[in-house]
């Protein structure tokens, strides 16, 4: 299965960049992850400066003129800023304009995050000039000269690729020379390269902004994101391109939604493999018959049919096993995707429609139930109750014992299915 997937992926990847127009339109996400009050204010301010149609038109024409292999968030932002300023010279709300593009589904949250990050990097105020005494060049002169040479070639790389991509490559190359270099070493090395006139001030500023914004940690740039999604859509064409789900934009952590995390963390092949786990789960849940066959040598000796709830619980058990086995897969290199990741992947490739994603995702509560306030409180009540049972003198000693017993009977409800010998699963 994995070999077939890899083969297909390789075959189709050749044709991926042969397409002409770049389309970044949102085809999966529901309500945007970027929906805070400050974001809405920024959005409003942008629309006060320039009307919606002008923003959309400017963005579309920029994308139309940008070939896939030149796709770059920095270039898009730069051109968009120029075009919007040509309409209103006082316009300063590029970020708001980007949010507006998301609100109109011209881009999704992943593309928005990349564009916003690019804008943050571009608008970073640098504290220049640097003070000599604050700079820490590495001691190894041979390594320093090798790295300075690499930095010297950065401008040429920047002409062929986007800042985030070029910086990521440079960081990788420097890390190969010495992995132990820290950010303050990079800071000194960039200054050194500038002083040696290997890079101009513009290139230096780009490098320094990238360093300050830790661009090396960026998992995804616009080109790789586009390539990833295009590959997924090629292998798994969406049955309904108009469906949207808030599940994919639910908060994964402070900085990412479920979908952003998925696309930043996993490759297209990994996402497809994760989706196939849910595909099997879905067909098992939908099945009306499951049997265990007992063989005596070559012939079936016994057929044990599973009742409906046994089928259900078996499907969940085998899902958990397959999730664990994913980590052993060569393509996952030991990393174990969570159920949320797997569900987001299944939705991303259209295996689970938007209308079902929340319900299937909710299955996790069966093996990983949410702890209620009382679940958490009972640990303390039990501990204190046990102490109180000895400490409280008669005739009031029954009070903690009574409290403990009530908790036992009301709050803690054990999963009886696991103890039930009348059911296989």
């Amino acid at each position: 299965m994995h070999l077939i997937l890899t083969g297909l992926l390789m075959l189709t990847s050749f044709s991926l960049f042969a397409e002409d127009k770049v389309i970044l339109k949102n085809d999966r996400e529901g309500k945007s992850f970027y929906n805070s009050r400050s974001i809405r204010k920024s959005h409003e301010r942008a629309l006060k400066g320039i009307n919606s149609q002008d923003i959309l038109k400017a963005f579309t024409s920029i994308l139309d003129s940008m070939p896939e292999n030149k796709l770059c968030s920095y270039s898009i932002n730069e051109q968009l800023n120029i075009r919007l300023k040509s309409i209103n010279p006082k316009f300063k709300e590029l970020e708001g304009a980007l949010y507006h593009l998301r609100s109109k589904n011209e881009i999704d949250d992943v593309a928005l995050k990349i564009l916003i990050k690019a804008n943050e990097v571009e608008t970073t105020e640098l504290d220049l000039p640097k003070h000599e005494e604050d700079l820490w060049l590495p001691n190894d002169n041979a390594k320093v000269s090798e790295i300075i040479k690499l930095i010297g070639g950065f401008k040429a790389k920047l002409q062929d690729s986007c800042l985030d991509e070029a910086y990521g490559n440079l960081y990788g190359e420097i890390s190969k020379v010495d992995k132990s270099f820290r950010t303050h070493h990079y800071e000194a090395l960039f200054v050194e390269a500038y002083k040696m006139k290997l890079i101009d001030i513009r290139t230096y500023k780009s490098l320094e902004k990238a360093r300050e914004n830790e661009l090396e940690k960026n998992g995804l740039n616009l080109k790789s994101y586009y390539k990833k999604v295009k590959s997924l859509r090629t292998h798994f064409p969406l049955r309904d391109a108009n469906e949207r789900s808030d599940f994919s934009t639910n908060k994964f952590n402070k900085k990412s939604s479920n979908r952003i995390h998925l696309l930043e963390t996993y490759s297209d092949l990994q996402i497809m493999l994760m989706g196939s786990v849910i595909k099997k789960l879905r067909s098992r849940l939908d099945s009306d018959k499951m049997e265990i066959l007992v063989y005596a040598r070559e012939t079936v000796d016994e057929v044990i049919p599973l009742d409906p709830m046994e089928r259900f619980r078996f499907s969940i058990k085998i899902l958990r096993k397959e999730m664990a086995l994913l980590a052993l897969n060569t393509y996952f290199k030991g990393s174990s995707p969570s159920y949320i990741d797997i569900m987001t992947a299944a939705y991303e490739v259209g295996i689970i429609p938007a209308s079902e994603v929340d319900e299937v995702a909710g299955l996790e509560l069966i093996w990983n139930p949410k702890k209620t306030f009382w679940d958490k409180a009972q640990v303390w009540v039990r501990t204190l109750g046990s102490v109180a049972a000895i400490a409280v003198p008669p005739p009031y000693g029954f009070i903690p014992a009574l409290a403990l017993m009530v908790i036992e009977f009301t709050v803690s409800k054990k999963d009886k299915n696991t103890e039930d010998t009348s059911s296989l699963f």
Partner: protein
Amino acid sequence: MKTTMIILSFLFSGLAFSQTSEREFPALVRTESNKPIQDMVRLADLVSDNSFDGKHFKIVKGKEEEAVKFNAHSDLTFRAATTYYHLTRARDYFVNKIKSDYVKNMPKMVIRIDHKSQFSELGHFAHDNLDPQFNNALTIPAGKGFERRGIKPWGMEIWFRPMKRIHLSEINVNDQAAQEYTAMLKQFRNMMHMQTLQRFLAGLMTSVTGASSANPFAMDSLVRTAGTSVIMEAAYHLFDPLTKLVQRKWYWLDTALVPEIIYHEYAHAALSDHLVLSHSTAIIEGMADFFAGQIADSPKLAKHIKKYNTFNGKNAKKKQDYMIQFEMTDYANTDFVFGLLWEMKKVVGEDRGEAFMFELRKKLTTNSTIRGQLVEGLLQTCREKCGSPTNDRLKILKALNARGI
């Protein structure tokens, strides 16, 4: 002329048969807040002007074949009017709301009140020397009769037994609430004994290490320690006798005066196209309870009717976990399946819940089990009837899993 006369006579006779009347009688009804009251009700579709003989139901007393007369004893007419009124309501529900063709075309039913005989599949009424029956109701299937013995064929009938005060000690009751309470008390007793022992050991340790001057073997200390255990033990052993002393001792149930029991029995008849009336099982009773609850528009059956029964009733909202014993006929009358179906109605949507459950009967037989065919039936019916089958099937599975099925 002759032909015209014949046609006219046919027309008149047709009119005569289709003529129905309405009359008002006092009957027991529920208020909006589910309280039982006596009120005047209008009995529809009566075909007789002097007895409880209607287009769809004939109310008779015991083994009689003639309908109860309007001028019979007021106790009897009160029962007859109550059963007739609520049976008509139940039939209207199945015909007009559920759109059941089976119920619409069902032949007229004989309803027997104050009927003590046991049922015989061959002889209709079992021999009178068999024990008379009280405090319950049943729906019997139609029978072919036995010509040679003079037993005529009979249609589907509902029998309401007379009420009789029976001492509770004579009845074998599956009182789960009492069982749970006893288990709680047992655990409390164990905890208290353990606590007493711990306190004694703690006192002994502090005394031995010199941390405390109190002597755990001192008389007052020993009395206090042992006293707790003795009191607890006494309370534990006296619990059962005291409960018996305090609780009600007599049981009775006037089934012909309990609307939900009337609905329940009629539901058996309405569902009998698939759930054959052969014996009582958890599923067949649960399905009848569900529709009785729907007709009564309440998840509580036969509650708050103390004057005519001391039956605890059934409550669909009582959360119970599945026990394998529920599959046994001994537990057929518990409210587990009722509660389960009531919950499923909410899962598939209140608006389509009734139609869903009515469709469900097609997937069941009288011998179906909860864990097997009932769950399978729910899932298959959902595939055909749910608004969002995959989602709703998952919701059903999750809900059933939570109940420990």
